C-alpha cells in the first residue's frame, strides 16, 4: 500500500515508517532464494486520536504468541498500556513486507524494529507536547500515553490529543531504546492478546470466513505422487443438486455451498490414475538417499581429522537415521478466495502471506498489486504452511466459477501434500584418546541440511559435511515428495545424532555423560544451561548404562544463538519396548525474555511435540503413495504421554531477545535416546524409537 493510500484509509494520526535498510528486512543468508523486500514504504504503527495504537507487522500468529510479545515490545518503548495496542498481522495490503513466520525470527528480528519505531514515535510526541505545554522536552514525563510537566501542576496532554486532526509521518531514526533496567512491560506475562477470542470460539481462522455466494471446493487428488490421470467421469457428481464440477487446467473440483455436499459430490467422481512403481518405501529410502544425495559440502572444520584418528585409542562409528515426519497441524491448509473488479483477496492459513501473494498473482495472471493476502489466526504451522498451494487453488477456482471459493483441505490431503521433514542419514566417526578426550569427530550429514550442525564441543580435530537439505536444491528424485522446514529444521536430526554419539563416547570412556560434556566445554553459556538443568534435575553422576529399567539422559544444543540443555527420566518396558517419560527438565538461555510465560509455553510445547518425532512419528509410504492419511496410524503426542515438565529460564540480560519457538525441541530426540540407553543399555540409532525398534536394539544388546 502506498503512503497516500494509507492516510486515506487510516485518517489522521501519527504514522511511523521504516526506510528499508534495516537488517530485519534483509534476507538472512540461511534463507537463500527468497525475494528481498520491502518494495514500498510501510508503516509500523499508527497512533489514533482515541489514543489506541495500531501495530502493523507482516508476521502471523500461529499460536507462538508473537501477537502478544511484539505488542509488549512496542508498548514498552512507546510508554503506552499494553492493552491499548492492537495488532494487525500478515495482511499484505496493510503490513510491511515480511519474508515469513519461521526460523524463530519474529522476536529476534522484528522486535528491535518495533522498539525503534516505538521510541521514535515517543520522541516525536514529546517534541509536540513540549510545544503544546510550552515546556522543555527533557523536563516532560510520559506514562501510559500521557505526557505531563512535573513543574506545572495539571499540565498534561495525551498522545491521542497530540495527534488529533494531524497527519504526521516519521521515519525511524537512531533513537535510543530503553535499557533493560527500565523495562516495565517487557519481562512481564500479560494475558495473551488472542486469549479471550480463542477460549470463546470467536477467533477466526481462514475456514471460518464466509462471503455471500461462497462455494466450498473439494479437489480430485491423485492416489500417489507421480501418478497421472488416465480417465475421469464426473457425470454422477454433476447430477447432485447444487453441485458444480469445474475442470480448470489440472484442477478437477466439485463445488457446493456446503463443504460436506461438495465432498459427497467428489466421492462420485470416477477417476483412474497410472501409478508408477518406484520400489521406494520408508525402509529403502535411506540407501536411496545415500545414493542420490548431491556432493557433500563442508559446513565446518578445524584441525585435521585424519591426524586425530591416529591419536585415538578407541574409534566409534555410528550411523543415525530418521524417517520423514509430518507437520500435522490440527487446522488443515485452508483458503478463501474472492475476486472482484480485477482484484483478488485471499484469506489463507499461511506462514508466508508475502510469498503467497506473487504466487496467486501469477496463477491468476494479475499484477501483484491486485492481490491481497489476509492472514487470520493460523491453526498451527510448524514450518508446514509456507507454500502457496491451497491459496492458489482457491483463487483459480474462484476465477473459474466467478464466485468466492472456500477450500479446506481434508486430512488425507494434508498428509499427502505436506512438505515433510526429510528422512535423513547422519554418519559420525570419532575417537577417544587414552585419557578419555575426544580426539576427532567426523560427521557426514545426508538430506537433513547442515545448519548449526558443526560441534560446539572443544574437539581439536573435527569436520562436518552436509549433502542435500530441507531447503530445496536437491537432485530430482532424491525425495519421493516435497520436503521442507519442520520446527527446528536440520537441528532435530543433527542434534539427535551428535548428542547420542557424545553419549556413546561417554559410555566408552566410562564417564558420566554430563561430566563428559562439561569436560569438553569451555563455552560459558553452554556450561551454565547444563549446570542449571542438572541442579534442578538433581542429576546424579554415574556411568551409563545403569540398566535399571529407569533411565536418565541429557542433551544440549545451540540453535540460532539460543542455548538449551534438557534432561529426562523415563522407564522402558523390557518386554513391551514401551517408553514412558516421567520427567523433563529443560533450561534455556535466550537473552532478554520478553514474556516469560510465553517462553514457557514454547518450551513446554517443544517438549511435548518433540516426544512425537522421537517416539512414534514417521510417514509410511510406498511408491509415492502416502500410507498415513489420518491420526489413527500417524500417532502424535497425547495426554497419557505427558511427563512432568520443568522449564528454567536462564537469565541473560546482556543479550538482546532471541527467538524461542524452536530451540528446545531440537534436544528431544537425543535426551530420550540417551535415557533409553541408560535404562536398558540399547543405543537407539533410528528415529522414531518405536517399541519394536527398542526391543530389537535390546536383543542386539
Amino acid at each position, binding site marked *: 500500500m502506498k503512503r497516500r493510500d494509507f492516510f486515506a484509509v487510516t485518517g489522521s494520526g501519527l504514522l511511523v515508517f521504516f526506510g528499508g535498510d534495516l537488517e530485519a528486512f534483509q534476507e538472512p543468508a540461511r534463507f537463500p532464494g527468497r525475494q528481498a523486500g520491502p518494495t514500498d514504504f510501510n508503516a509500523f504503527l499508527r497512533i489514533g486520536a482515541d489514543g489506541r495504537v495500531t501495530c502493523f507487522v507482516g508476521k502471523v500468529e500461529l499460536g*507462538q504468541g508473537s501477537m502478544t510479545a511484539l505488542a509488549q515490545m512496542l508498548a514498552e518503548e512507546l510508554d503506552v498500556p499494553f492493552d491499548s495496542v492492537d495488532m494487525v498481522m500478515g495482511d499484505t495490503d496493510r503490513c510491511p513486507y515480511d519474508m515469513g513466520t519461521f526460523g524463530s525470527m519474529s522476536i529476534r528480528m522484528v522486535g528491535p524494529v518495533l522498539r525503534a519505531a516505538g521510541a521514535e514515535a515517543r520522541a516525536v510526541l514529546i517534541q509536540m507536547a513540549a510545544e503544546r505545554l510550552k515546556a522543555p522536552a527533557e523536563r516532560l514525563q510520559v506514562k501510559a500515553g500521557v505526557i505531563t510537566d512535573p513543574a506545572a501542576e495539571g499540565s498534561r496532554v495525551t498522545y491521542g490529543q497530540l495527534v488529533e486532526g494531524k497527519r504526521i509521518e516519521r521515519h525511524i531514526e537512531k533513537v535510543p531504546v530503553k535499557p533493560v533496567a527500565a523495562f516495565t512491560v517487557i519481562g512481564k506475562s500479560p494475558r495473551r492478546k488472542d486469549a479471550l477470542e480463542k477460549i470463546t470460539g470467536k*477467533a477466526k481462522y481462514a475456514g471460518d470466513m464466509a462471503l455471500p455466494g461462497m462455494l*466450498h471446493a473439494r479437489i480430485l487428488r491423485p492416489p500417489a505422487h507421480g501418478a497421472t490421470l488416465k480417465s475421469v467421469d464426473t457425470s454422477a457428481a454433476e447430477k447432485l443438486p447444487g453441485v458444480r464440477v469445474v475442470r480448470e487446467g489440472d484442477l478437477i473440483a466439485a463445488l457446493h455451498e*456446503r*463443504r460436506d455436499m461438495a465432498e459427497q459430490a467428489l466421492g462420485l467422481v470416477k477417476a483412474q490414475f497410472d501409478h508408477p512403481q518406484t520400489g521406494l518405501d520408508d525402509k529403502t529410502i535411506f540407501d536411496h538417499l545415500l545414493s542420490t544425495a548431491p556432493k557433500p559440502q563442508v559446513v565446518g572444520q578445524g584441525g585435521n581429522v585424519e591426524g586425530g584418528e591416529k591419536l585415538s585409542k578407541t574409534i566409534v562409528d555410528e550411523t543415525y537415521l530418521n524417517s520423514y515426519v509430518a507437520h500435522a497441524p490440527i487446522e488443515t491448509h485452508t483458503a478463501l478466495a474472492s475476486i472482484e473488479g480485477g482484484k483478488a483477496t485471499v484469506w489463507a492459513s499461511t506462514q508466508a502471506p508475502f510469498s503467497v501473494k506473487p504466487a496467486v498473482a501469477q496463477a491468476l495472471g494479475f499484477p501483484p498489486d491486485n492481490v491481497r493476502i489476509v492472514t487470520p489466526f493460523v491453526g498451527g504451522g510448524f514450518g508446514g504452511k509456507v507454500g502457496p498451494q491451497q491459496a492458489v487453488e482457491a483463487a483459480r477456482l474462484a476465477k473459474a466459477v466467478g464466485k468466492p471459493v472456500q477450500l479446506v483441505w481434508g486430512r488425507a490431503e494434508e498428509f499427502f501434500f505436506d512438505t515433510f521433514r526429510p528422512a535423513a542419514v547422519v554418519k559420525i566417526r570419532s575417537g577417544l584418546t587414552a585419557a578419555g578426550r575426544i580426539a576427532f569427530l567426523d560427521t557426514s550429514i545426508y538430506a537433513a541440511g547442515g545448519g548449526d550442525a558443526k560441534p560446539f564441543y572443544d574437539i581439536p580435530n573435527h569436520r562436518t559435511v552436509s549433502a542435500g537439505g530441507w531447503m530445496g536444491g536437491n537432485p530430482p528424485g532424491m525425495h519421493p515428495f516435497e520436503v521442507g522446514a519442520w520446527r527446528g529444521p536440520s537441528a532435530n536430526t543433527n542434534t539427535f545424532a551428535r548428542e547420542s554419539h557424545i553419549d556413546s563416547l561417554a559410555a566408552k570412556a566410562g564417564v558420566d555423560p554430563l561430566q563428559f560434556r562439561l569436560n569438553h566445554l569451555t563455552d560459558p553459556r553452554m556450561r551454565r544451561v547444563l549446570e542449571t538443568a542438572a541442579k534442578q534435575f538433581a542429576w546424579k553422576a554415574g556411568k551409563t548404562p545403569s540398566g535399571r529399567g529407569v533411565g536418565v539422559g541429557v542433551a544440549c544444543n545451540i540453535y540460532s544463538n539460543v542455548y538449551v540443555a534438557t534432561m529426562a527420566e523415563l522407564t522402558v518396558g523390557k518386554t513391551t519396548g514401551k517408553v514412558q517419560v516421567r520427567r523433563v527438565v529443560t533450561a534455556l538461555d535466550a537473552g532478554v525474555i520478553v514474556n516469560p510465560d510465553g517462553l514457557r509455553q514454547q518450551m*513446554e510445547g517443544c517438549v*511435548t511435540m518433540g516426544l512425537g518425532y522421537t517416539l512414534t512419528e514417521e510417514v509410511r509410504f510406498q511408491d509415492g503413495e502416502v500410507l498415513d492419511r489420518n491420526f489413527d496410524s500417524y500417532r502424535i503426542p497425547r495426554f497419557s504421554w505427558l511427563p512432568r515438565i520443568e522449564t528454567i529460564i536462564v537469565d541473560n540480560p546482556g543479550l538482546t531477545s532471541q527467538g524461542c519457538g524452536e530451540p528446545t525441541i531440537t534436544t528431544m530426540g537425543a535426551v530420550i535416546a540417551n535415557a533409553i540407553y541408560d535404562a536398558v543399555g540399547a543405543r537407539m540409532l533410528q528415529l522414531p524409537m518405536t517399541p519394536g525398534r527398542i526391543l530389537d536394539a535390546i536383543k542386539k544388546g
Partner: protein
Amino acid sequence: MQRTISFTLNGKPASVTTDDERMLLWVLRSDLGLTGTKFGCGEALCGACTVVVDQQAVRSCSVPIKDIAGKRVVTIEGLANGDRLHPIQEAFLKHHAFQCGYCTPGMLLNAYALLLKTPKPTRTQILEHMEDNLCRCGAHVRIVEAIEEAAGAAKAGAL
C-alpha cells in the same frame, strides 16, 4: 432424506431442514454459522469438532444430524453465560491452556463433559478422558492444569 430436525442449541430452540444424513459439524458451521466448532480430521480421530450432546462429548464430524433430533447440544458459543465465562473457560484463560487455539473449543467441550459427569476428577481420569483430543502445539500440560483448576472451582459449587 430431506427433513426438518429440531433440537436445542445452546439453550435455545433450533431447527434445520436438510439431508438428515449430514454430519452435525457441517450443519453447525455452514447452515447455522457457528464456526467455533472446528474441522480437523473428519473421522472422529482428533476431537477438534467435539460438542456436548445431552451431557456427553461427541465428535460432531461423525454424528448425523438425524441423531440430534430432540436433543440438547452445547457448542463453544454456548459455554459462557452471556459475558460470564464458564469456570472451565476461566481456567483455560488463567493457565493460557492453548497456543494456536484451533483444538481449544474441542478441548473445552470435552473437559466440560468430563466435569458434568465427574466434578472432581483425578489426574488419571483427566488424562484418560482427554486422551483422544489432539493438540499439536503441545499445550497439554496447561490443559490438564486448567481442568484441575476448574474442578477445584467445581468443588466450590461454581459449575
